[in-house]
């Protein structure tokens, strides 16, 4: 029986439900020290002096002078130091590291640091430093606006969002074999490997990175673990002992990355009957103090900024700038939730301006197979915007509910969205990801750098390999993500683990099957000895992308989604309570339907938090509510019933037609909820839609 498409027993399940699974804080090594970080308390300035205010005997202390190699976190541009070298650019920037075998003794490790302060940059619009600027142009904007009957303009804002994985960031660095072995809670072992090689000036084979069971990531363990790994490794090499560093919740929230805040402006030319003729979109994102992943976040943001709508004359201009806060970084959706929020709330305002039904306006303009995107990509037969919209509207009885709720303190709204799977066309080629499959006496063993962080990576990869080899699912094993034995399959990000890495594995399995011929695995091993098949990403021939002009096929494939949200407003407190949320997602193929639904349900809940609850309060450049008491994410009582519908319209180059799924579900809830609030007559263009904002907007609107 084929494994793909069935809810086979998860490979990574057992240990998580009986307490046996070992997360990083559950591990210990002989002679291990505990490490901590001394951080800046100002936003910007020069460090004048650092004096210990404790007796440092028995402690290991390190600063920038102890970095064996280059004092940077190697990622895109080497602009972020691992330890501050004379200057700080944000609150909570690491200055010193301290280790001791008694964790409680670290509380005594206090330093007095004098600074010469410099004025901080707080407003991304006024920043003197632009990290990255991207323009997409299609057709002739002037021509489009000239033909339009009506022009609708608007500005939309989204805020920081904290990933809030329940397991904080943590690593253990072990000096061994003339190098370092790094165990940690992380998404991308090879990102950490690359960073440590540069930081420690070690040959690549002297750095080994092993992912331990990881308690959630959502992007928050994409780039930051390289920083933490660097800190632990510097201490471990200086002490010549293993060093464990586990953040507590406050430190994790203060120091690590958040979702980029955004300000998106739309100017749209439409005809009276609802055809969009011109789109002029300006995207501004707040990058924080260092460049880190901001150019790529901006890229995904601008590539999704039009929403799933056809238009001949388009200009999208985006920039991400420096401010003196901790760097913003990867978070599920990676720029797209910000720009799709703006696009979908703006669509609702266009419908209002024209007096058109919001579903009708979307039907008129949505992408259909054969349409071209803003970058000129011709959409394939799997383009499903019309299908997801139709299904969501029918399933929720949208038109009737909308009429029934009109004029009450309840509202219903929808959002239509799409999400590119994998890195951009150019990105996957540059990654050149590899995956391997080793023959075992009764099946095969998967060797990939992709990590299991809750989404079921091991399970879906094993399903794909089992079916390609034609063997039962339980005869496929999956190796741990350990750089000493698995190849670099690229990072576990960007909704690429199933579609891209899964496809490489399928190719490995097909090659292995051909090599086996009529032999069983055991016979093959007897006759020919060990067999390991390694394959690399193969770009589908028709995909063309130009990074200079931003023209071409931005992504191999897109998933398509439609959300319908029904909400009610508390008459006294003005709080918005979500009543139900329907998410229709077209994902090519659900390799494991329960795991796929889990991605949609979980992403939707995070999207509800983004829309209504989650507010990072900054005061003097520092998160003022860096604890779970004050930063509120959805509990069981804040999360409404989530109705998930999965549609499948296969992508020819995905394994069994599968496209990406991890990120897309978080794109839709915020605009659907804000459009439902708009249905109540409240004009809100900013999230989170807290009670205070609803009260304020109600006073203005009424």
């Amino acid at each position, binding site marked *: 029986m084929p494994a793909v498409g069935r809810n086979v027993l998860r490979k990574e399940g057992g240990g998580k439900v009986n307490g046996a699974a070992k997360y990083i804080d*559950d591990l210990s090594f002989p002679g291990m020290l505990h490490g901590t970080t001394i951080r800046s308390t100002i936003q910007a300035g020069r460090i004048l002096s650092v004096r210990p205010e404790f007796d440092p005997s028995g402690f290991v202390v390190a600063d920038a002078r102890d970095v064996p190699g280059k004092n940077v976190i190697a990622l895109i541009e080497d602009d972020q130091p691992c330890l501050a070298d004379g200057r700080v650019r944000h609150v909570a920037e690491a200055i010193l590291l301290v280790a001791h075998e008694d964790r409680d003794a670290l509380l005594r490790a206090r330093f007095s640091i004098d600074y010469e302060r410099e004025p901080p940059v707080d407003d991304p619009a006024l920043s003197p430093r632009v990290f990255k600027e991207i323009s997409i142009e299609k057709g002739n904007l002037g021509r489009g606006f000239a033909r339009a009957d009506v022009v609708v303009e608007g500005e939309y804002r989204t805020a920081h969002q904290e990933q809030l994985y329940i397991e904080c960031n943590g690593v253990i660095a072990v000096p061994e074999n003339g190098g370092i072995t790094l165990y940690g809670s992380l998404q991308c072992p090879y990102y950490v490997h690359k960073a440590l090689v540069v930081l420690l000036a070690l040959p690549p084979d002297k750095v080994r990175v092993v992912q331990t069971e990881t308690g959630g990531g959502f992007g928050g363990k994409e780039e930051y673990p390289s920083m933490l790994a660097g800190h632990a490794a510097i201490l471990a090499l200086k002490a010549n002992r293993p060093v464990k560093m586990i953040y507590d919740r406050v430190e994790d929230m203060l120091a690590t990355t958040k979702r980029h805040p955004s300000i998106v402006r739309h100017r749209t030319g439409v005809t009276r009957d609802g055809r969009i003729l011109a789109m002029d979109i300006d995207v501004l994102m707040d990058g924080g103090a260092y460049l880190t992943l901001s150019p790529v976040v901006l890229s995904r943001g601008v590539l999704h900024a039009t929403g799933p709508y056809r238009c001949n004359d388009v200009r999208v201009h985006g920039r991400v700038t420096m401010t003196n806060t901790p760097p913003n970084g990867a978070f599920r959706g990676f720029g797209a939730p910000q720009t799709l929020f703006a696009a979908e709330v703006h669509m609702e305002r266009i419908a209002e301006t024209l007096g058109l039904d919001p579903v009708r306006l979307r039907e008129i303009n949505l992408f259909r197979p054969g349409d071209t995107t803003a970058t000129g990509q011709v959409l394939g037969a799997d383009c499903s915007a019309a299908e997801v919209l139709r299904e969501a509207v029918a399933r929720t009885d949208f038109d009737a509910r909308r009429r029934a709720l009109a004029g009450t303190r309840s509202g219903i709204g929808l959002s239509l969205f799409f999400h590119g799977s994998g890195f951009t066309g150019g990105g996957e080629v540059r990654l050149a990801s590899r995956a391997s499959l080793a023959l075992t006496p009764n099946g095969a063993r998967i060797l990939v750098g992709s990590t299991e962080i809750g989404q079921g990576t091991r399970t879906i990869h094993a399903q794909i390999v089992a079916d390609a080899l034609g063997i039962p699912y339980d005869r496929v094993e999956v190796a741990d993500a350990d750089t000493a034995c698995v190849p670099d399959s690229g990072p576990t990000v960007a909704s690429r683990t199933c579609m891209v890495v899964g496809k490489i594995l399928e190719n490995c399995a097909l090659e292995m099957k051909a090599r086996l011929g009529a032999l069983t695995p055991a016979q093959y091993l007897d006759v020919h000895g060990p067999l390991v098949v390694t394959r690399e990403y193969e770009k589908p021939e028709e995909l063309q992308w130009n990074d200079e002009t931003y023209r071409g096929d931005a992504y191999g494939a897109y998933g398509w989604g439609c959300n319908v949200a029904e909400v009610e407003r508390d008459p006294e407190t003005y709080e918005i309570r979500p009543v139900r949320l329907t998410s229709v997602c077209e994902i090519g193929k659900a390799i494991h339907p*329960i*795991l796929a639904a889990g991605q949609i349900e979980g992403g939707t809940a995070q999207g509800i938090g983004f829309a209504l609850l989650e507010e990072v309060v900054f005061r003097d450049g520092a998160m003022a509510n860096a604890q*779970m008491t004050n930063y509120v994410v959805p509990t069981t*009582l804040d999360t409404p019933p989530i109705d998930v519908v999965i549609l499948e319209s296969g992508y020819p180059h995905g394994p069994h037609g599968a496209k990406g799924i991890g990120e897309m579900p978080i794109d839709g809830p915020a605009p659907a909820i804000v459009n439902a609030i708009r249905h109540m007559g409240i004009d809100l263009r900013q999230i989170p839609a807290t009670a205070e904002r609803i009260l304020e907007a109600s006073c203005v609107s009424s």
Partner: protein
Amino acid sequence: MKRLLDVLREDFGLTGTKEGCGEGECGACTVLLGGEAVNSCLIPFAQVRGLAVTTIEGLTGARALQDAFVREGGAQCGICTPGMILAAVAIPAGADLQQIRRSLAGNICRCTGYEGIYRSIFAAGSPPAAD
């Protein structure tokens, strides 16, 4: 004084009980104290004198619920799972969805949107009640 959480994890090596926030907000450290679900990060060790403490390692009679968490998507990353299972075990038999929601309101899961957790509880026979 040590917290119950530290005694379990450090003195007994029972690392199935997790720390998520250290302030009683997330519920990852939930254990049963005299059959009641509590946050072990908020319990000074002296307070457990004379009471039975049940951690995920010592939980018996909930196999069906634990299996259901694997099969029905109740566990994704798994870090909240031991606490979530212990909180679920403490729900009175025959509870409906709204009662289950209320009972689990102190246990945060960032992965599932809770739907998979409800599915798991109902699949195991609502609710499971430990013996």
